[in-house]
């Protein structure tokens, strides 16, 4: 791979051409997409793979005895194998397709949790979790009487692990994000998994913001479950992944039930299917899986180490250039060191409400999310009701960051001329 003049190991100019939506004009201006932590854009390679599947091989899986049904089954299972390799799973049996990371985390709480947790059992999460890793546990507090404990976040955006030993003492589950979707903080996965296991708890990793941006090896993490979603990693919406060790998946009863997930059904009962299909009730998202497989190919082609290097460099540029331009008027939350964070920049500007900021951004074709980012407990800890959040990916470069800076300046001029 040739290096560009800016030292970026990714040829972003070429990558931008892979994403048809980036050719679109918004209000006569180029689309500056800075909301990939919300959902990523899709390269032509993924769109073509989905089209090709529907045009050539569409059939239901695991039942047809004709050619295109075999092709469809091979496409689905081939995608599973690609995902397994991409995240370092020991086998495809560990890769369960779900609708998204939220459904995957609900599977953990509701299938494993209901079968294995009792009243008073401590479940440890962190203050920087997405609602998807909070609300399912809240439900178990109400249903089973489990005890929810919170690892606090410090003012620097890192988890405060001072009391970790006490917090995990007696815990049955430690469930945490590998990367914060609001602050970009990279959490110490190894240390948290070790603390969980030392305490006799299972470790659950919400890897939604991690897998799309970092080389991932779930085997090296040594966790029990990990969840992530396809649409944040260049794949289609409607498909996510629950990874689990065979041991824990075997100890987990089925979640949704019906067709596909059974070996046998009688008037008296049913026998669940083998892993991973035991957790995949109904016709699976076949085309979406094909798209996710193509997304994995696309990212593998770029190289995840290279993707990470690109994002560290671009995040550093963004932190530096925006600080130079706006000084104390702009507050970027989370770790200040690019190597300790992902390319997720939550910020506030003067006393402007994030929705007013992003409304002005929209006028300039700059797409940035405003709000609480499905992390209201964290927002409370930060002492803000909402932030604007710009997030970077493989198709962003310094010109996009500069466009963000221009948009911030324009919002300042509009509201406080």
């Amino acid at each position: 791979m040739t290096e560009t003049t800016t030292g970026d190991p990714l040829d972003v100019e070429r990558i931008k051409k892979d994403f048809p939506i980036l050719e679109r004009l918004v209000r006569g201006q180029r689309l500056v997409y800075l909301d990939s932590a919300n959902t990523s854009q899709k390269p032509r390679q993924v769109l073509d793979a989905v089209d090709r599947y529907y045009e050539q091989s569409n059939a239901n899986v695991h039942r047809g005895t004709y050619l295109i049904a075999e092709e469809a089954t091979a496409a689905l299972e081939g995608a599973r194998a690609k995902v397994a390799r991409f995240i370092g799973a020991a086998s495809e049996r560990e890769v369960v397709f779900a609708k998204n990371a939220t459904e995957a985390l609900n599977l953990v709480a509701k299938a494993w949790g209901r079968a294995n947790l009792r009243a008073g059992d401590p479940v440890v999460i962190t203050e920087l979790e997405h609602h998807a890793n909070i609300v399912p546990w809240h439900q178990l507090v109400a249903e089973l009487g489990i005890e929810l404990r919170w690892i606090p976040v410090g003012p620097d955006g890192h988890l405060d692990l001072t009391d970790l030993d006490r917090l995990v003492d007696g815990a049955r589950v430690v469930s945490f994000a590998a990367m914060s979707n609001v602050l970009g903080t990279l959490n110490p996965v190894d240390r948290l998994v070790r603390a969980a296991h030392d305490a006799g708890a299972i470790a659950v990793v919400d890897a939604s913001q991690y897998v799309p941006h970092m080389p991932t090896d779930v085997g090296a993490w040594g966790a029990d479950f990990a969840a992530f979603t396809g649409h944040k990693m260049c794949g289609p919406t409607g498909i996510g992944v629950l990874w689990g060790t065979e041991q824990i998946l075997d100890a987990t009863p089925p979640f949704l039930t019906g067709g596909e997930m059974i070996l046998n059904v009688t008037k008296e009962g049913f026998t669940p299917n083998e892993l991973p299909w035991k957790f995949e009730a109904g016709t699976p998202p076949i085309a979406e899986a094909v798209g996710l497989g193509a997304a994995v190919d696309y990212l593998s082609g770029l190289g995840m180490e290279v993707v990470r290097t690109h994002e560290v460099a671009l995040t550093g540029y963004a932190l530096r250039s925006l600080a130079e331009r706006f000084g104390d008027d702009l507050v970027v939350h989370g770790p200040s060191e690019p190597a300790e964070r992902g390319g997720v920049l939550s910020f506030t500007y003067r006393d402007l409400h994030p929705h007013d900021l992003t409304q002005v951004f929209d006028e300039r074709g700059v797409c940035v999310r405003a709000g609480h980012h499905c992390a209201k407990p964290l927002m409370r800890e930060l002492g803000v009701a909402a932030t604007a959040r710009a997030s970077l990916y493989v198709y962003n470069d310094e010109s996009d960051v500069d466009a963000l800076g221009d948009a911030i300046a324009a919002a300042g001029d509009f509201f406080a001329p």
Partner: protein
Amino acid sequence: MPGLEDLYREIILDHYRNPRNRGELSAPPATRVEGFNPLCGDEIVLFLDIERDVVRDIRIGGQGCSISQSSASMMSSAVKGKTLDQVRALSRAFKGMMSIHEQSLDGDGAGEADLDGPGAGNGAHADVKLGDLEALRGVVKFPVRIKCATLSWNTLLQGIDEQQSA
């Protein structure tokens, strides 16, 4: 395509920069009621002093975007000193101005107090003078912001209901 000037009219920015009736009343005797916009985390706290079916005083706390803040400020000016019947009529007219889009956006109609029901368009309230509130008309061109503009009105109606049933 609607532009920023359709949304942020000068009078809206004035109410945003110089909000009227900010503060608190001691509750009780005043009625205190909170409203939330789950989309953006905006929170509003209204203090209502209602005596013999007249809004004697109103104060606003909480935080939000320029649209929710200015709408609350304009609402407070519009309802202060009005009878509850007048307030309800104003509310119907205001939500009518916003309602076509709002009802198509969320099925519950977002207006239990909208006695005229679905289909009550702008014309149905021609007898009610919206005054400054008219400045918010441009918000309907930005559907995602409609809830910002209606938050204070929905919270007000909730407060009146609570006060009346107390």
